[in-house]
């Protein structure tokens, strides 16, 4: 395996007295799609948020695309341009149009002119199939469309890595497919992705690796088939059984 593009080592994180991450190691290779699953409270979202320093680990190291995110000298805002993130609740800016959402960072962070930003923004919206919704505000979009605009906002900056935090959990079931389709395309284009999600069907079809977390630790990881059909650990078996029943 080539040098990993994401390399998190021995991450510990507390929220007050709560020990949320208990020494987690995660390496992700370029173009790899890693699924992180686990019960709520297992620390999977916190781990994801450590990968762009929305949460700062108490100890350990996080290196993404060669940049040590925890080093004092690191310009975190520059580093974050290379790390796209998509949230469960979309978090689109409600006071801007879809295009405005996508172009804000292009103009303010990437230093594009208004015209360049608009062209790139429209191209990004095109990739998620929503070029014709450029002038709509988030309130005028369905949940599925809103999440795709959120993906466009992230990929417009041409990140090296994409993080997805339960991207389909807030969606009505009939809208999930459109978001997964966009993620599948990103995958085909070779994007490195870390996805916290319980979309088992998608994980089976698209993931290179599934990581099972419980109680702030990685319990088990492997190919989707191995994790879903022949988990070694009792905790993994119990969890897989649970989500398959639903």
């Amino acid at each position, binding site marked *: 395996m080539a040098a990993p593009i994401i390399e998190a080592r021995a991450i510990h994180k507390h929220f007050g007295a709560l020990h949320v991450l208990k020494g987690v190691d995660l390496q992700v290779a370029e173009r790899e799609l890693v699924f992180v699953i686990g019960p709520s409270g297992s620390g999977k979202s916190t781990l994801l948020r450590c990968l762009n320093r929305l949460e700062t680990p108490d100890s350990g190291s996080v290196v993404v695309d060669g940049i040590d995110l925890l080093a004092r000298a690191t310009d975190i*805002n520059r580093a974050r341009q290379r790390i796209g*993130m998509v949230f469960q*609740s979309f978090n689109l800016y409600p006071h801007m149009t879809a295009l405005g959402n996508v172009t804000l*960072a292009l103009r303010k962070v990437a230093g594009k002119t208004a015209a360049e930003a608009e062209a790139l923004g429209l191209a990004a919206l095109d990739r998620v199939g929503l070029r014709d919704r450029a002038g709509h505000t988030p309130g005028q979009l369905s949940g599925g469309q809103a999440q795709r605009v959120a993906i466009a906002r992230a990929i417009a900056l041409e990140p090296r890595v994409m993080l997805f935090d339960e991207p389909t959990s807030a969606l009505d079931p009939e809208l999930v497919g459109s978001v997964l389709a966009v993620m599948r395309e990103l995958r085909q284009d070779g994007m490195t992705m870390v996805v916290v999600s319980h979309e088992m069907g998608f994980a089976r079809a698209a993931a290179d690796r599934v990581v099972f977390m419980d109680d702030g630790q990685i319990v088990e990881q492997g190919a989707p088939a191995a994790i879903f059909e022949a988990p070694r650990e009792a905790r993994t078996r119990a969890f897989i059984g649970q989500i398959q029943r639903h």
Partner: protein
Amino acid sequence: MLDTFFNIEIMKAAWPILLAGLGNTLLLSATVVPLGLLGGLILALLARLRSPWVRWPLMAWVDFFRAFPPLVLLIFLYAGLPFIGLELGGFGCVAIAFFLNTGAYYGEILRAGIDSVPTGQSEAARSTGLSATQTMAWVILPQAVRNVLPDLMSNTLEVVKLTALGSVVAMPELLFQARQAQSLTYNPTPIVVAALIYFALLWPLVRLLSRLENRALRAG
């Protein structure tokens, strides 16, 4: 009755004086509203810092100037500061008093507005590489202001009305001019006209505010 309160001759004579007063009231409002907003913004942004070294003095400051009657503050600045050699003049005193007093009110409103924006908004903005300052300017503040617009307007209405306080420090604003005209003519007509001018000036704002509040009620 008509001769006492709606004396046409006196209205004609007093009109230029009152108009000059209206001009000064508008000028004063156009100065103290932005000043108050600026003071409020500074306070609201400082309130984001969680450090107790900022929080406690800030709370004391806001409490103090909200509890301090603006008229007393104004007279203190005007009549008290010259004793330490600070002659700020009527306009300077009004500007400072309003900066302190209305700034504290605007500050509380803006703070509530900023708190009303979900944290996910700033997380999304930061995740795209926007700095904390850019996130505040482009993502948080526009939403914060929109969320508390009725309160901001209501406070602004109060501020414009409070500019009449300037009359006690000889600021030639509308009320002061009306009092002058009244004492020159021995007739209350100028005061009545001044009241009508205030009404004409503020009523559209009051209407707009009601509509905003109704809309907020329906949306909320």
